[in-house]
């Protein structure tokens, strides 16, 4: 186990290097540069040239690359090329919003998705199963954007229960939680759809297994059969899809963040691309890769927890 952990941690270094190298070169290949983006189309050519020089964009690529790696090795994420603000400071301000949204969306998604999946699997090919499947398919087809607007219309405009937009004040629990509720519900419901589908499939697989039949034949109560025997075995793919969602939600919840006007890591990433803020993009990718690596590691460890037959 410890050896496994050590290997995994050692392997994060090449993972980081690969991601960062790719990102570093790709953002520099696409047209446009931060100097032009920052100064706008009205700026004079001299100003753009001067800013490029100050941003260090006129240095050879490999020098920029090693400078970036060296800064990173010192734990320095650098400064935004656009606002000049320290990126670690920006991340510190934005990350709590992303984390609370991701966690609560996973909470909603898993809490609704897994039981629904089990339920539809146990009642497969009944009316309830059809309804459940079709609703979850609708969930898959509806863009987060759309669902967000609908939820906003219902809860904020019609019922006037919750605020429609903004991230809320992180230091004020009530403001924070009221602003979190709707986006979390939006992402949670979308996640529910795929978790339900996969849970249903995994459960169907397992419910037909010999040992489940045996358990049933032994006269065990149905609940024990489903939860103690079947679910445990079906849990591995379910855990992996939840892990995938966790990773995706951190960077890919841009649309939801935009609709609800919340700050977030995903928005920061897209903003950095649009503004050609190379340093911000690179640094956000560092953070994001870190999350992916850790989430995947945790998921892999959970596998052996839920299914003791899996060993590392």
């Amino acid at each position, binding site marked *: 186990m410890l050896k496994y952990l050590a*290997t995994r941690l050692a*392997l994060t270094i090449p*993972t980081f290097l*690969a*991601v960062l190298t*790719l990102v570093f070169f*790709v*953002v520099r*290949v*696409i047209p446009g540069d931060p100097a032009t983006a920052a100064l706008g189309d009205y700026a004079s050519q001299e100003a753009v040239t001067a800013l490029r020089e100050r941003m260090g964009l006129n240095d050879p690529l490999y020098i920029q690359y090693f400078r970036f790696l060296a800064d990173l090795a010192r734990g320095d994420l650098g400064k935004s090329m656009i606002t000049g603000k320290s990126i670690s400071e920006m991340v510190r301000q934005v990350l709590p919003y992303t984390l609370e949204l991701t966690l609560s969306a996973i909470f909603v998604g898993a809490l609704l998705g897994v039981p629904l999946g089990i339920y539809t699997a146990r009642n497969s*090919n009944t009316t309830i199963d*059809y309804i459940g*499947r*079709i609703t979850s*398919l*609708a969930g*898959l*087809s*509806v*863009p987060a*954007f*759309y669902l967000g*607007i609908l939820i906003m219309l219902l809860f904020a405009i019609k019922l006037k229960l919750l605020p429609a937009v903004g991230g809320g004040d992180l230091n004020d629990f009530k403001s924070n939680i009221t602003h979190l509720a709707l986006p979390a519900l939006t992402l949670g419901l979308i996640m529910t*759809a*795929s978790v339900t*589908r*996969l849970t*249903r*499939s*995994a459960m*169907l*697989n397992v419910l*037909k*297994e*010999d040992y489940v039949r045996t358990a049933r034949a032994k006269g065990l109560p149905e609940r024990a059969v489903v939860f103690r025997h079947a679910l445990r*075995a079906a849990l*591995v*793919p379910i*855990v*992996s*899809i939840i*892990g*995938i969602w966790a*990773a*995706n939600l951190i*960077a*890919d919840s841009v649309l939801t963040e935009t609709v609800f006007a919340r700050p977030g890591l*995903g928005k920061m*990433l897209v903003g950095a*691309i649009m503004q050609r803020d190379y340093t911000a993009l690179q640094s956000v*990718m560092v953070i*994001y*890769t870190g999350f*992916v*690596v850790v989430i*995947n590691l945790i998921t892999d460890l959970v*596998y052996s927890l839920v*299914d003791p*037959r*899996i060993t590392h």
Partner: protein
Amino acid sequence: MSLDSTDIVEPTFRLRSQRRRLANTFFRNRTAILGLILTIIILLVAFFADDWFVALPQGKTPTPLLAPYDPLLQDARNRLSAPDDDHLMGLDSYGRDIWSRIVFGARVSLMVGVSSVAIGGTLGVIMGLLAGYLGGAVENTIMRVVDVLMAFPSLIMGLMVLAVLGSGIFNMILAIGIVLSPTFARVAHSATLSVKSNEFVEAARSIGASRIRIIRVHLFPNILGDMVVLASIWTATAIRVEANLSFIGLGVSPPTPAWGSMIRDGTSHLFDAPWESLYPGMAILITVLAFNLLGDGLRDILDPKLQQ
């Protein structure tokens, strides 16, 4: 389990009887039939949108067949008109007939949805299966590559493909496929780990079955069900991601209709002309529904345990 039966039965006999049994399983499943019919309708709509199969060989410009209007024809002065008798689904923000655009858009969207999921699924399943079964250094290498791929959100992956391969619809499909592959790989990997520890795999190994055979006969069929479900889950996503990549210049260029881009255009008039985004959204819903129902039906016949 499946091991003894499949190995002992005489091949040709097995095939024929199995086929018949599988067909029976499938056709007894009413939702699967519904999925099949819907899928066929959608494919026909895409195919017969215009008379290209007559016109193109003759070197003529195709004329709309199932679509009532030219999907590119603009009527700017009546833009965003509500659905009426002339325009069943109304007009978009350029005054183009939305129904005609949905019919033509089926071509791009179906191609993107199906091919990118196929690419992502194939790549992912191969990676996941190999990593899960072989373990050790192979597993570490593959799964860390998956980590790298997973770290790229679709927009960045799109930019990378654009930078390296240039624009074009096939490059876009490839980009979406690569974005989807890690999710397949991780689920396939976990499912393989689970299945691998079953007794029948041990048994197969103990009687000297080759690695390839074990993967092909014992592991792959057992994880296929989950993979089909996963594929049907990501189809809708793939169709929609097209819009995000078209807008950075990868993939279809305007005014070619595609459902994802239609929804995207419609979102800026969500309250003024909801039909602009609602109908393409429903097209995606129906397509995904069709694929999912069909997928579930296939899943049932592909599942080795359910065949018993």
